[in-house]
C-alpha cells in the first residue's frame, strides 16, 4: 500500500490518496510494482499522481513506501506530529513515517528524492536541508519504535543482505556531494545495477523506451562493458572494475555495494548520484517483465499495458540470410546456476532429433555436449554472440543474457526455455518469431539454485521435454523461413 495527501492553502482543502502496488493491473489506484525502484521513486510517483489529480495542491505528504500506510493513517500521524510545514514525521526511534514536502520539491528536485534513505529520518532531513538550505524538522508522530527491518518487509520490500541499508549509504554520499559541489544540481544520476549480464541488458533496453529519464548513467561491471553499446543504451556507462557479485550469497548486497563505491573511487562517487537499484522487491510476484521494472525505476510511470514489453513488437525483426537447405539451430543452455541450466540429456535428445531431421546444431560454450553431434561454439561477448546468431536460423535459449539479447535487441527468431524462473518476467512478445515453453509445473517459480526443493534433483523438471522443444523449433522455422521438415 502507498498513500499520499494533497494539501492546498488556497482552497484550504486536503485530499487523501491510497494506492496499491499493482499485481498486474493498471487501474488508477495502482502503481507499478517495480523490484528495481528505490522507495524514493515510489514517493515521486505518488506525488506525480496526487499533483495531477489536484493541481492546486501546495503540499504533498507521502507515506514512507516501506510501510503499509493508508491516507487516513497518514493524516492522523501528520496531525499528531504537529508538523505545519516541510518536515518528516517519525516513529519513536526516528524511522521516517510521513514526508511533508512542498510541491516545488517534487517538481524541481524530483530525482533527488531517489537519494532518500527511507530508513533514517535524521539522515533524510540532512539531505533535504543540504538541498534546500533550510532547517528540516523531524517530529515524532506517536508511533512506537518499529524495530529492525525484517528480511521481507510488511509492504513487500526485501531487506535480505541489508540491502535497504544501502539507501543510507547512497543518502550519505549524496549529502557529501551537495555540501561540497556548488554544481550538484547538474551532476549525473547513475543507476547501480551492475551485475549480471541480463540485468545490465534490461536497463539498457528500458533506457531506450523511457522519455525524461531520471538517470543519465548506469554502473556496469567491466566484464559486461560491451553490453550497453551493443544494446544501444541511452545510459552512459560508469565502469565498475570489480568481478560481479556472487550468486551464492557469500557476499552481501550491502558489502558489495560498499566495495563498489570504494572501487569506483572518490572521483566517481564525488561527482555522481548513485542509486542502489538491486532487486528491492520480489519481482516475480507480478507478471511484469524485468525491462518494465527497469523502465519504472528509470522514471516511466508505466500507467498502461501499452507501455510494457509484452505489448510491443521487438525494436528490430531480423532473419538469417543463409540458405535454408541446411537449417541451423543455435542453443544456449547455461543459465548461470545449476537448476537454471537446461538438463544435458534434454539437449542431447533434442539435438540428435534435429540433426536427424537435417539440421545443423550448435551450442554455446559446451564442448562436453559435442558427443551428440552438436558443435560447441564460443560467444564470449555480445559481438561474438551476434556473429554466431547471424550464422543460425533459430536461437533456442534458457532465461539468460543471450536469450534476451538475441530477442529483445536483435529481434531474431527465438525459442525461449524456462525452468525454475517465470517466463513472464523475462520472455518477450509472443508471435510468429518468438515462443517460449515450460511444463507449467505448479512448483514454478521456485528460483532454487543447486538442488530441486521438490525432488532433490540437480536439474529442473519444469523444462519442456525434447518433443516440445523440437516442435517449437520446427514450427517457428516453418513460419519464418518456410522450412519444412
Amino acid at each position, binding site marked *: 500500500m502507498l498513500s499520499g495527501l494533497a494539501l492546498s492553502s488556497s482552497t484550504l482543502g486536503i485530499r487523501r490518496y491510497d494506492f496499491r502496488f499493482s499485481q498486474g493491473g493498471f487501474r488508477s489506484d495502482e502503481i507499478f510494482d517495480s523490484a528495481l525502484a528505490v522507495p524514493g521513486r515510489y514517493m515521486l510517483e505518488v506525488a506525480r499522481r496526487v499533483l495531477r489529480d489536484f493541481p492546486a495542491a501546495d503540499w504533498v505528504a507521502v507515506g514512507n513506501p516501506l510501510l503499509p500506510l493508508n491516507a487516513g493513517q497518514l493524516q492522523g500521524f501528520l496531525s499528531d506530529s504537529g508538523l505545519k510545514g516541510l518536515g518528516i514525521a517519525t516513529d519513536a526511534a526516528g524511522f521516517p513515517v510521513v514526508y511533508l514536502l512542498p510541491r516545488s520539491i517534487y517538481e524541481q528536485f524530483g530525482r533527488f528524492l531517489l537519494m532518500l534513505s527511507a530508513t533514517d529520518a535524521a539522515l533524510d532531513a540532512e539531505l533535504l536541508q543540504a538541498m534546500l538550505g533550510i532547517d528540516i524538522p523531524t517530529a515524532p508522530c506517536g508511533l512506537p519504535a518499529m524495530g529492525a527491518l525484517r528480511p521481507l518487509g510488511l509492504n513487500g520490500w526485501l531487506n535480505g543482505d541489508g540491502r535497504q541499508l544501502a539507501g543510507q549509504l547512497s543518502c550519505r554520499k549524496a549529502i557529501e556531494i551537495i555540501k561540497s559541489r556548488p554544481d550538484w544540481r547538474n551532476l549525473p544520476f547513475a543507476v547501480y545495477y551492475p551485475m549480471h549480464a541480463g540485468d545490465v541488458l534490461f536497463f539498457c533496453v528500458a533506457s531506450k523506451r523511457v522519455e525524461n529519464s531520471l538517470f543519465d548513467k548506469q554502473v556496469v561491471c*567491466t566484464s559486461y562493458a560491451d553490453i550497453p553499446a551493443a544494446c544501444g543504451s541511452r545510459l552512459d556507462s560508469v565502469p565498475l*572494475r*570489480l*568481478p560481479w*557479485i*556472487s550468486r551464492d550469497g*557469500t*557476499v552481501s548486497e550491502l*558489502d558489495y555495494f560498499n566495495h563498489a563505491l570504494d572501487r569506483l*573511487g572518490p572521483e566517481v562517487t564525488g561527482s555522481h548520484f548513485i542509486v542502489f537499484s538491486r532487486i528491492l522487491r520480489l519481482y516475480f510476484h507480478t507478471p511484469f517483465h524485468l525491462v518494465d521494472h527497469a523502465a519504472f525505476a528509470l522514471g516511466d510511470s508505466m500507467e498502461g499495458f501499452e507501455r510494457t514489453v509484452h505489448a510491443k513488437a521487438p525494436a528490430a525483426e531480423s532473419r538469417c540470410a543463409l540458405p535454408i537447405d541446411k537449417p541451423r539451430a543455435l542453443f544456449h543452455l547455461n543459465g548461470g546456476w545449476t537448476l537454471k541450466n537446461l538438463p544435458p540429456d534434454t539437449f542431447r535428445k533434442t539435438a540428435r532429433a534435429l540433426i536427424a531431421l537435417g539440421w545443423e546444431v550448435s551450442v554455446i560454450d559446451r564442448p562436453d555436449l559435442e558427443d551428440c553431434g552438436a558443435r560447441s561454439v564460443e560467444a564470449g561477448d555480445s559481438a561474438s554472440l551476434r556473429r554466431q546468431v547471424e550464422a543460425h536460423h533459430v536461437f533456442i535459449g534458457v532465461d539468460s543474457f543471450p536469450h534476451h539479447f538475441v530477442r529483445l535487441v536483435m529481434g531474431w527468431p527465438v525459442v525461449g526455455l524456462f525452468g525454475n524462473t517465470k517466463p513472464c518476467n523475462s520472455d518477450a512478445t509472443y508471435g510468429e518469431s518468438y515462443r517460449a515453453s515450460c511444463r507449467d509445473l505448479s512448483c514454478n517459480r521456485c528460483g532454487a539454485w543447486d538442488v530441486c526443493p521438490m525432488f532433490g534433483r540437480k536439474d529442473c523438471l519444469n523444462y519442456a521435454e525434447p518433443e516440445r522443444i523440437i516442435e517449437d523449433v520446427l514450427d517457428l522455422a516453418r513460419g519464418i523461413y518456410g522450412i519444412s521438415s
Partner: protein
Amino acid sequence: MGTLGDFNLNGLKADFGLRHLVEVGTGSGAAVDLAAPLGFDHIHSIDSQHKLALATALRHSARQDITVIHARSEKGLKEALEDIPATAPTLFWLDIDYPGADARLQADPDARLERELRLICGLRSMGQDVLLVDDLSLYKGDLAFVAELLGATHMIDRSPQGTGVLIAIPKRT
C-alpha cells in the same frame, strides 16, 4: 608450485625499474597481497575462477592501483594491457598450471602459455619487461616460441625453484 614470494620482488623492481605487475592466476591473492605495498603504479591480476577473483578484488577494492580481472587469461590480458603504456616496464607473472585456468585450456596448458605470450608480445614493446613463468616442469611441449618471441630482447633462463620457473629478463645494453 612456486610463488612470487620466492623472488626478491623489491630487488627485481629496482633493478629493472618495474612499474607494473600483471599476474595470470590470482589464486588466493598471495602475489597481489605481496606486491600491494611495494609501490607499483598498478597491479593487474587475472583469474577465470570467479570466487578467487572476487575475494581478492574485494580485499583490495579501495586500492585504485590494484585491479583484479575475472576473465579467461587472454581476454584479461587484453584488458590489463589496455591500461599499461606499451613501454612501461612491467613484470609478468604467468602460471602454466594455475587452478583457475579455463577448463578447456587446462587440458593443454602449453597452448595457453604460447597464446598468452604471443598476445603480450603483440601488444607491447617487450624490451623493458620481465617475465616469470611458474610451473615450468609441467610444460610438456617445445618452448622454442619463447626464444622466437623474446630471444632478441631478453636473457632466458630456467630456475629449478619449486616446480620450475622460466625467467626472461631484458638484455642490458
